[in-house]
C-alpha cells in the first residue's frame, strides 16, 4: 500500500477560491458561515448545501476533505448518493497467506524446534491480522468506496466475532471480506452466509453444537442480535434453533462443513413453523418474520443517524426493506435522500467513534499516516477492530467519551500532526507537575517531598526506581503500542498547513481560524468557540514573535503555530462530533 492516502489532486486546486465574507458580527467573526466553501450553495435556497454534503460524508463515509465538499456540491445529491450506493469495490486487494504449520518440525523435531515453530505460527498469524487491519483502515482513509467500508464496519459490529477467541486471523479476514462483499447487497444472503461462516461458528461455539450436547450460543445470538431482537422469540425457540444448527462446523481445512452425524434430523418447531429444519430453514423462517426487517432497518438507521427512528418512520423503512426482498441498496438510498436524515437534531450531533475521529482527522488534514497508527490509536480509545467488547459489538455514541479518552483523542491528534512525539507518550510519571512552593510547603508529613522533589517543582527523575516503575506501568498498555506504532523516529506527517492556508487566501488570525475550523471539523463550530481560537492563535503567534498576517509565510515557526492550532481544534468537544 502507498502511504499517501489523500492528497488533493492538482486540477482541483484552482477551484479552492476564497469567497467573500458576509454577515460579519462586531468582532469580524461570521455568525454562521465560514470563509471558504460553506457559503457556496449550489442554489441559494437548496437544502443541498455544504452542511448537508458534509453530513452525508460524515455518516455514509469517513469524513470529507474540502475538495470532497466542493465535488459533492457540484455533483448534486442524487448522483452522489447513487455513487455511494453502487460502492464500486476497487483498489488493491488483501491477499491472505495461509499460515501453515510445518508438521515435520511440529511433530518430529526436538522440544526447542517445536517451540520455535509454535512461535513462528503465532507471530505469522498475529502479523497477518495486523496487516489486514492496516489495509482496511487505509481503504477508509483513501475513500474509494466510502459507504461500502462504512457498512462493513457496521456489519463488523453487528455480526461480531472476536479474534482473541477465533484465534486464526485468516478466518477473521475471510469474515470481514464476506461482510464487505454483502455490505450493500442483500441482507438475506448475508445472514445465510454468516450462519456458515467459520469465524462465527467458532466465536459462538457452534463447532461444539451436536445433537447429543446442543450448544445454544449461536442460536440465541442469531435471534437476539442478528435478526429479530429481544422479545420476538421464546426460550423454546432458542432450543429448537440450536437443534437445527447442530452439525454446522468447520473441517480440517478450516472451511464450513455440515457434519451429518452430529446433526439432529428430527422435527423442530421454530416460531410456529414445524419441519425437519436445518440452518438454511432457520434463516428463511427468521427472514419471514416482520420483526426481522424492523430489527435490521432500525439498527442501520440508528447507526447512521446516531439516534433511534420514531415508530412510524421505522415501520415505513421496515416495510420498504421487506418489499425490496431485503436488498440493502434501495433502503440505504431512500435513507440518504430522506430529508429526515438531514434534520437539525441529527446533523453534527453524533459522537464520532474512535475510527471516525482518527480516520476523519487524517482525511481532513490530508495527512499520510500508517494504518497501524490508526488501528492502535483506535484501540487506545476503546475500539480495537477484530476485538469488540462483546457479542453486541461497540456501544456507539456518548459512551465513547470518558475523561481519559477525551484527552487521548487530543493526544493522538497531536501525534498525527507531529506536535507530540513517541517519547512523550511514554512519559515519566513524575514530570510536568506544576506545584508552587507554597503547595509544596503545605504538604504535611504524609507527603515527604524533600526526597522526591527538587528545585522548582520538577520531580527527580533519575532514580532507577522511577525508571523501573515507568517501564512496568507502560508495559503492555495500549499507549505503549501506539508509541511503538509511531516508531523510534517519531511520526513526521507530510502535510503543510501553511501551503493550504496560502492557497485558501486566509491571512488574518480570524480568517485562519475560520479556514482551519471549516477544514478540520466535521461540523460547524459555534461562534464562541471560534472566538476562543482566535484569542489562542493570537497569543501563540505573538509569543513566537510573528507579525499579524505573517503566518502564511511558509516558515518553520509559522507551520508550528498552525499545527498547534490544528491540534487545539482537534482537542475540542466540537471535534468529537460528526
Amino acid at each position: 500500500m502507498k502511504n499517501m492516502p489523500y492528497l488533493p489532486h492538482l486540477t482541483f486546486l484552482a477551484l479552492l477560491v476564497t469567497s467573500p465574507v458576509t454577515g460579519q458580527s462586531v468582532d469580524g467573526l461570521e455568525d454562521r458561515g465560514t470563509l471558504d466553501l460553506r457559503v457556496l450553495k449550489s442554489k441559494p435556497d437548496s437544502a443541498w448545501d455544504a452542511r448537508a454534503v458534509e453530513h452525508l460524508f460524515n455518516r455514509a463515509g469517513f469524513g470529507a476533505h474540502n475538495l470532497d465538499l466542493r465535488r459533492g456540491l457540484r455533483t448534486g445529491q442524487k448522483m452522489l448518493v447513487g455513487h455511494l450506493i453502487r460502492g464500486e469495490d476497487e483498489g488493491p486487494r488483501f491477499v491472505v497467506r495461509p499460515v501453515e504449520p510445518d508438521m515435520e518440525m511440529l511433530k518430529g523435531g526436538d522440544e526447542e524446534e517445536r517451540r520455535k515453530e509454535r512461535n513462528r505460527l503465532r507471530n505469522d498469524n498475529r502479523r497477518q491480522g495486523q496487516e489486514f487491519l492496516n489495509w482496511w483502515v487505509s481503504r477508509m482513509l483513501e475513500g474509494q468506496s466510502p459507504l461500502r467500508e462504512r457498512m462493513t464496519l457496521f456489519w463488523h459490529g453487528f455480526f461480531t466475532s472476536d479474534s482473541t477467541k477465533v484465534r486464526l486471523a485468516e478466518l477473521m479476514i475471510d469474515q470481514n471480506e464476506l461482510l464487505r462483499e454483502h455490505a450493500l447487497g442483500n441482507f438475506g444472503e448475508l445472514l445465510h452466509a454468516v450462519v456458515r461462516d467459520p469465524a462465527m461458528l467458532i466465536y459462538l461455539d457452534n463447532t461444539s453444537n451436536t445433537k447429543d450436547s446442543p450448544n445454544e450460543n449461536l442460536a440465541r445470538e442469531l435471534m437476539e442480535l442478528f435478526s429479530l431482537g429481544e422479545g420476538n422469540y421464546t426460550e423454546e425457540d432458542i432450543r429448537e434453533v440450536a437443534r437445527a444448527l447442530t452439525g454446522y462446523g468447520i473441517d480440517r481445512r478450516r472451511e464450513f462443513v455440515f457434519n451429518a452425524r452430529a446433526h439432529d434430523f428430527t422435527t423442530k418447531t421454530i416460531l410456529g413453523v414445524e419441519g425437519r429444519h436445518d440452518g438454511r430453514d432457520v434463516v428463511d423462517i427468521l427472514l419471514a418474520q416482520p420483526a426481522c426487517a424492523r430489527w435490521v432497518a432500525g439498527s442501520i438507521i440508528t447507526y447512521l443517524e446516531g439516534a433511534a427512528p420514531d415508530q412510524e418512520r421505522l415501520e415505513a423503512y421496515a416495510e420498504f426493506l421487506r418489499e425490496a426482498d431485503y436488498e440493502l441498496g434501495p433502503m440505504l438510498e431512500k435513507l440518504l435522500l430522506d430529508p429526515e436524515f438531514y434534520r437539525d437534531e441529527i446533523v453534527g450531533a453524533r459522537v464520532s467513534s474512535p475510527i471516525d475521529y482518527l480516520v476523519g482527522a487524517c482525511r481532513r488534514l490530508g495527512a499520510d499516516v500508517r494504518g497501524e497508527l490508526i488501528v492502535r490509536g483506535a484501540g487506545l480509545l476503546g475500539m480495537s477492530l477484530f476485538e469488540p467488547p462483546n457479542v453486541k459489538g461497540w456501544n456507539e455514541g456518548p459512551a465513547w467519551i470518558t475523561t481519559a479518552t477525551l484527552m487521548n483523542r487530543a493526544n493522538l491528534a497531536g501525534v498525527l500532526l507531529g506536535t507530540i512525539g513517541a517519547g512523550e507518550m511514554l512519559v515519566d510519571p513524575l514530570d510536568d507537575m506544576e506545584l508552587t512552593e507554597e503547595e509544596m510547603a503545605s504538604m504535611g508529613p504524609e507527603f515527604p517531598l524533600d526526597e522526591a522533589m527538587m528545585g522548582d517543582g520538577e520531580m527527580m527523575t533519575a532514580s532507577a526506581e522511577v525508571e523501573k516503575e515507568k517501564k512496568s506501568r507502560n508495559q503492555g498498555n495500549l499507549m505503549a503500542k501506539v508509541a511503538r506504532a509511531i516508531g523510534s523516529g517519531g511520526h513526521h506527517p507530510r502535510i503543510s498547513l501553511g501551503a493550504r492556508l496560502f492557497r485558501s487566501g486566509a491571512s488574518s488570525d480570524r480568517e485562519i481560524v475560520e479556514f482551519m475550523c471549516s477544514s478540520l471539523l466535521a461540523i460547524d463550530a459555534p461562534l464562541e468557540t471560534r472566538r476562543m481560537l482566535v484569542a489562542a492563535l493570537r497569543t501563540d503567534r505573538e509569543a513566537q514573535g510573528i507579525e499579524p498576517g505573517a503566518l502564511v509565510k511558509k516558515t518553520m515557526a509559522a507551520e508550528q503555530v498552525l499545527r498547534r492550532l490544528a491540534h487545539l481544534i482537534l482537542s475540542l468537544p466540537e471535534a468529537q462530533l460528526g
Partner: protein
Amino acid sequence: MTRAMQQLLARRQVLAGGLYGLGGMSLATPLAKGLQGLSDETPFPRSLVLVQLSGGNDGLSTIVPFADDSYAAARQATRLMKGDVLPLDDYRGMHHNLKGLHRHYEEGHMAIIEGVGYEEMIRSHFRALEVWHTGRRAGRISGEGWVGQLAQAAWDTEDHPNLVVHLGGEVPYSVYSTHHPSAALQAPTVYKWFGKQQVELAYGMGAARADSKKPAEPKHAGRDKALASLRSVLDDAHDSSASIRKAAALYRERVEYPRNRLGGGLRDVAALIHGRLGTRVFSLKMKGFDTHAGQRGSHDSLMESLDTALSAFMDDLSKSPAGRDTLVLVFSEFGRRVKENGSKGTDHGKAGPMFLLGSSVKGGLYGKHPSLEDLDAGDLASTTDFRSVYGSIIEHWFKTPHEVVLGKKYPLLPLLG
C-alpha cells in the same frame, strides 16, 4: 510561562468564574483543601474498592474444600491437596499462594462469603457481568450500573469528577451513570493532555459556556445539546487529570507493591485516597481467570499476583488512618464447573466465593459452602445472593437504603464490625 499566556489565563479565570487555576490547583479542588486545612486526624470519606476477577475465577481452587471426597473425585490436574492449602478449618483452606490474605484473615480483617451467586445463574461472561454490574437479573436493559445508582442515591450533591474512578482499560458497566460519570484512566502518568492544550481548552470552555447561555439556533439544536455534555466531560477531565496525577506523584507508599497490574492500580488507589480526592468508589479489573486449559500453572500465578497486590494495599492502608475508612470487595462473574474438563482446565460454572477486606470488616466465613454433590447442572448452586453482599455494604457502610440502589430488599449480612 509566557506573559501572553499569563494574560490569557487571567482572562480565562474571570470568564470561567475562577473555577480552576493552572494545572487545576486552585483553592476549589478537594486536594487543595486537603493540603491546606486537613490534618491526619480528619476522617477520610468512606470508600469502596471493587476488584473484578475477569473471566470467572475457579472458586474451588481459591477456597479449597480439601477434605471433601467429591472434590477429590471431580478434580485431578487442578486438585489441591491438604498440604497445598493454608487451612481455615478441617474442611477448607486457602490456595497456598494466598499467604498475605491468609494472614489478614487470621487477623480478622477478611470476610470470605462462600457460594455467592443469584437465581438462574448465567454462564456467559458478558451477560453474567451485566448481572453483577447492575445488580439485576435483566442486566443493562434495567438501567444504569449499580455504582452509578449508588452514587445518585448516596452522593447526589457531591458534584465532582473523581467521585467514582475506574483504573484500567474498558470501563465496566457497574460505574455507568449519566449523572455521575466515572473518571477513567489507564495510569495517572498518561492521564493528561500532552502539550499545553488544557490551558487553552479550559479557558475556551469557560468562555464558551458564558456565551452559549444565549438561546440556541434551531439549526444547531442537536449539535449544541451534544456539545453541552462533551464540555462537561472536558471540565471533568481537566480537574480530574490535574488532581489525580498530582496525588499519584506525591504519594509515598508505606510498603512495596508488587510489579503487576493490579499492584500498580491499587497503589494508585492508595494515592488517590491519601490525596483526599473525595473518591467513594474505585474500580479495577484483573484479567486472565478464564482457565479452560492447563489451569494449574496459570491459576497459581494469578493467585500470587492477587495476593501480593491485595495484601500490599491492605498493609499500606493499615499504617494509615484511611485504613478504617476503606473496604475492598473482590468478585468474579461466575465460578467454574465442578468437574474438570478434558484439557486440565475447567469450564464456566456458577457460584463462587467473594472477599471483603478492610480493618472495619468483621472477619470470618459467611454464607454456606455449596454442596459438591447436590449440583445445579454440574455446577455449584448459589447459597448467598451477591446482592446481600452489595446491600450490606450500601446499607451498613454507606448508610443508604439498599433497596433504592438494588431495586428490592435482600437479607443483609453482618459483615462490618
